[in-house]
């Protein structure tokens, strides 16, 4: 198998799980339980994306990563927005790495 064939194969196996669910049901036909289940997905996805992966955001430095995320949470809570928390977290991370933490 050439690399290009492999890439096409990879495209198919990643694409299908992303597309098939769109045709699996009609929103208005969903029973309330499933509708509630799908509505909770974004929260649980975010939780599971942040932990534990976020603690390795800055590779091999869980404490520094954790402090960066706490800074992001602090800014998001008191000032809101997305760019602010992200820039805050990255800058604090930069300073801490620079200081050799």
């Amino acid at each position: 198998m050439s690399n290009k064939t492999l890439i096409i194969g990879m495209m198919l196996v990643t694409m299908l799980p992303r597309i098939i669910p769109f045709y699996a049901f009609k929103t208005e036909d969903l029973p309330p339980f499933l509708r509630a289940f799908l509505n909770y997905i974004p929260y649980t996805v975010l939780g599971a994306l942040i932990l534990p992966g976020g603690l390795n955001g800055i590779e091999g430095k869980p404490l520094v990563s954790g402090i960066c995320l706490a800074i992001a949470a602090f800014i998001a809570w008191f000032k809101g927005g997305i760019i602010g928390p992200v820039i805050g977290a990255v800058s604090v991370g930069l300073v801490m790495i620079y200081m050799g933490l």
Partner: protein
Amino acid sequence: MIKKGFKDATPVMAGYFPIAMAFGILAKTAGVSIVEGVMMSTFVYAGASQFMAVSMIAAGISPISILLATFLMNFRHFIMSASIRAKLNTVPSKYFPLIGFFLTDESFSVASMKEDIDDFNYLISLEVSCYISWGLGTLFGYLTGMFFPAILITAMGVALYALFVALLIPACKKSSEAILYASLAGIINTFLSQIPWISSSGSFAITVISVSMFAAYLNQMKGEAQYEQ
């Protein structure tokens, strides 16, 4: 709505670019051609599994194993697509393949935290903006090699996680359910990831499905209790 989609995508674009650059650099050092490297980012478009695939190609691992690993790693998007689908009422079904193809953890997270996403122009401009950043980053990384100082690349590693935090916090301020179930998912996922025979994508899927089920179950119980009163 196109403008709004682009605007909401900017933090993701900023986070994607350096990671995609790192991918371009890895592809080059692994001996993958520039066309194949960019094809990975534009055809497959699947973050972590691209890194894995390139390392596996370089290590001479069989294509079938690479395909299987890629499938298992990205199967989690199945749940995210279903969740997005449940919020679409007016978007014509002919657009579904596009919305699905461009879906990522990040575009899903950004879109899901918005009130009204039942709009194709909004979704596709959000998603394609992220996609372009990923593709250009790959090309740029491949062509230039290391461009940003290493310390900046390292610090940027936390950017997308900070994005997830910033997306989650407003929801937590509004509802105690968001903070409860997101924390529960984070804790369970952390716990499951410690188990050696469960892969990280496996623990992610188990966590998201079980905690969401639990949440929906409690929600139903609450509804029935109110009904009885």
